[in-house]
Each structure stands twice: as C-alpha cells, then as structure tokens.
C-alpha cells in the first residue's frame, strides 16, 4: 500500500491542529515584509545523499518556490570540505546569481570531541570556530548556526572573531532544551553584557511540537504497531479534546494493544513548550528554523502550530529568515517513500498564507 492510499483510508482521522482562532495574517492584516522565507538544504538531504539531486538542483528548487534564503550544512553539500577550491567558490556564487538565492546561514558543527585523546581545549575550540567563520565568509554567508552544545567559553572567546569577520553566530535552541532554561539565560546574558551584534539565537520550531506527527503515526501503522481504525479513533479523540482518561476507556473497549496505548500516550503527552515564551527571545533571534515533520495535502503541519508561532514572531518584531527544516524522511525511512521537494513546497504554501504573502 502506498502512503497516499493509507491516508485516504484514514480520511476519518482528520488531523488538524491549526483550527480555531484567527491566522496570524488575519490578525495582523497585511504582509510581514520583515519575515523572509528560505530553506535549509538539509531538507533535501536524502535526495542529495542518493545523488537524485545535485546542489544546483536544490538551489533551483528553492528559488522556484520563492525560498531565496539558503542555509547550508557545508559538510553535506560542499565537495572536498573543508578544503574548498576557488573554482568551486566561483561556481557557488554563479549559482546564487543564476537562481536569485542568497547565502544566509552556514550550519556549523563544533566538533568538541574531534580528537581521540582529549576534548577540545578552549583555544582549540576557538581555532575550530575560526576555521568555519573564514569558510562561511568565503562563501558569502551572513550567519553561522552554532550547535546547542557549543561550550559557552568558546562562544565568548569567539565573539571578537565574529566581529572581525562580520558574521553573526547564532546558537540553536533545539528541543528538548527548555526555552526558559539556564543555558538560554546564559546566552542572553552574554548578549546583554557584551551588547554584541555578532552573537544571537537561532530558535528551532521543533520546540513547539505539540503532538506526535502524522509521519510517526503512519510509520507505526506500516510497522504493524497500530491499526488504522485505532489511529483514527485516537486522532479524533485528541482533535475533539476528549480527556485522556476517557480516550483510554474507549481504547480498552476495543482491546487496544500495548503499542496502540503507546500511540495514545504519544499523542496526548506533548513535549511542546509554551509558544508565548518565545516572545522575549525574538529580539535576540537572527534566524529561525521552521522545522516540520509532515505537511498534509491540505497544507497543515500536523504537530507544530505555525499560525500561533508566526503571530508571536510578528508581534515580537522578528526581522530575518524562516527556513524550512524538513525532518519527516528521518521518521519515514524504511516505512514509506517521502518527497522532500513536495513536502517543502507544501510548507511554503502554508508560510505564504500565514505571512500574508497571498
């Protein structure tokens, strides 16, 4: 069975999270010129890995959907990295010109455990960071995405280098990090104390993953862990806000298995954090990862409430890119085929609507 057939069979499930209330664009009438759309080429990684798409194909695709801001993991897409040839750099800028795309964020990996015999000292860590600052500059990027676990002393010591190369280092706030937790407070205090413009935040919207995605659900079904009828019952119960105790009673009535109960728990135990807590961080944020798992055929993301998120970003005055980060193929592998381009396209239909571009 294809996934499309599976979804048709599940029509009764009607998974919709973005129901009720005004959309951000309705609430704020008019477009949001400060929030621009982009894509992290990470979204197309499976096609790139299997060589179904080249880097140029990825850029052409991003351009064709108006996602002009490019984030790239150089360790995915740049041949010979970290030894980048000058011919390749020329090709890179030629492609940017051809497709009207713009290098926005270079996804940096602070490989603190690079060496077998010891973890990076602060000095070694700063040297590694400078390597990437230079390469990001060479490729015309404006921002460096920092891994959440980049040691704080390495960040502090690298700020003068970021200023020298005029690049912004933005540390990614990624689930399961509490958005109001001590590490975020620490980063904010560094920005406040130094008043630097070259260090900021890069929140990942997976922080607001409010329920297990429909991709996870479909994988459970394909793996034989979940009957379609039970999935539909759970999805409907959750969508109609049936209390979890009553949903459990309903599942017991139909002799649900342990793994089906696990699905109910996953749907009812969201890891998503309070979206309002993003608001005070917006002025510190230079880049946003528009993480998503599964865009349905009616252009809804099944687990992340983008209408509420974009409202908070607009209210907070966010000025920067939102780039797609498609994560669904990671869930789906071996269960069903995914089409990264189609998935990203669907997300951009949603983003255009929420940003008032249509």
């Amino acid at each position, binding site marked *: 069975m294809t996934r499309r057939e599976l979804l048709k069979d599940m029509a009764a499930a009607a998974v919709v999270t973005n129901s009720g209330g005004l959309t951000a664009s309705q609430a704020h009438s008019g477009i949001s010129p400060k929030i621009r759309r982009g894509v992290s080429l990470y979204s197309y990684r499976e096609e790139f890995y299997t060589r179904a798409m080249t880097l140029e194909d990825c850029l052409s695709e991003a351009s064709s959907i108006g996602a002009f801001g490019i984030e790239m*993991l150089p360790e*995915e897409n740049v041949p010979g990295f970290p030894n980048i040839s000058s011919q390749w750099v020329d090709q890179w800028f030629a492609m940017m010109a051809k497709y009207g795309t713009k290098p926005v964020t270079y996804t940096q990996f602070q490989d603190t455990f690079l060496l077998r015999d010891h973890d990076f000292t602060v000095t070694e860590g700063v040297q590694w960071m400078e390597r990437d600052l230079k390469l990001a500059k060479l490729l015309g990027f404006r921002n460096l995405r920092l891994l959440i676990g980049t040691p*704080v002393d390495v960040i502090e010591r690298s700020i003068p280098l970021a200023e020298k190369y005029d690049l912004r280092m933005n540390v990614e706030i990624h689930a399961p990090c509490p958005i109001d937790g001590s590490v975020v407070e620490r980063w904010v205090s560094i920005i406040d104390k130094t008043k630097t413009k070259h260090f900021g935040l890069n929140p990942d919207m997976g922080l607001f993953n409010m329920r297990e995605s429909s991709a996870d659900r479909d994988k459970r079904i394909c793996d034989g862990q979940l009957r379609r009828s039970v999935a539909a019952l759970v999805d409907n119960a959750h969508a109609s806000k049936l209390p979890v105790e009553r949903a459990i009673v309903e599942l017991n009535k139909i002799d649900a298995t342990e793994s089906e109960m696990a699905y109910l728990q996953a749907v009812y135990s969201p890891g998503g954090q309070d979206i309002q807590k993003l608001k005070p961080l917006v002025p510190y944020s230079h880049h946003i990862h528009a993480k998503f798992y599964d865009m349905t055929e009616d252009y809804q993301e099944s687990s992340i409430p983008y209408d509420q998120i974009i409202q908070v970003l607009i209210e907070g005055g966010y000025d920067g890119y939102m780039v797609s980060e498609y994560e669904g193929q990671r869930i789906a592998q071996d269960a069903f085929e995914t089409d990264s381009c189609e998935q990203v396209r669907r997300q951009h239909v949603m983003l255009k609507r929420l940003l008032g571009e249509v």
Partner: protein
Amino acid sequence: MFNKYMILTRDFRNVGESGRLTGFQVKIRIPYYRGVTLSLVDKIDLTVDGEAFSMEQMTFSAGGRTYNFNDLAKTTNTEWAFGEPAILTVSKPGGLASGMHTVQLGIVIRKSYIPHSDPENLFDFAHTTLVPFLQMREGATKTMTLV
C-alpha cells in the same frame, strides 16, 4: 539515519595479489546527515555470514586514500563526504566464496552535541534525554551476491 543506504551492493568483490585472494571489499556510506572529519569515525564492525571482523583486519579508503584505523583516528583535515562511498577492505585469506552472503555493518560516529565538561550545569536537560542517543551504533544488514 540512512541505515538502508549504508551497505552498497555494487563493487562487492574479492581482492588479491599475485593470483591469491587475500580478502574482500565492500562499499559503505555514512549513516549521518553530514560528512564528518575522519577522526570522528569512532567504530566500525562487520560480520559476514556470522564471522566477525575487527577494525584491525580492515582498511578504510575515502577520497582516494587508504587508512588503517589508527591513521583514521589521527586524520583531522579530511572528511568522509556525505553520501560518498568509502571502501572497507577486509583481510580474509582465500576471500569469500562465490554466492550469497549476509553482511552486517555497524558504525559509530562521535557526535559532539553536548559537552562532557559542563561546570555551570547548563545542559542538565540533556544528560538523560539526549546524550544516550548520541553515540549510537547505526546498523544495517544486507544479503547480496559475490560473483
């Protein structure tokens, strides 16, 4: 991640010198969403038809160069590129018999998401939830024919 793509069928073959078979080769791809510096390739295990081969019995070839695992651990200026096949050359006098073989592969990449040293306890949220998943062995099994 990408486990289903880790083991390649193409170029699965015996190797030898001066008419004698000394071992076999299998092409592999990285089970991660980026290429990594060679020193971060932490462990590779390989079992063929139940016979396990240690890292000492293998060499790893990437980007046109061949490394033993001691050299690999020290190589910090070259990457195993994303999606790019590397060649494992495995020592086995006489090689593998012609026919069907079940190849099991495991790879551990050292990932630096959360620092080991956390004097300010900034990463308390990660130690139980995230860290156990970071040094995970990614595994795959494939049955394929050697001619």
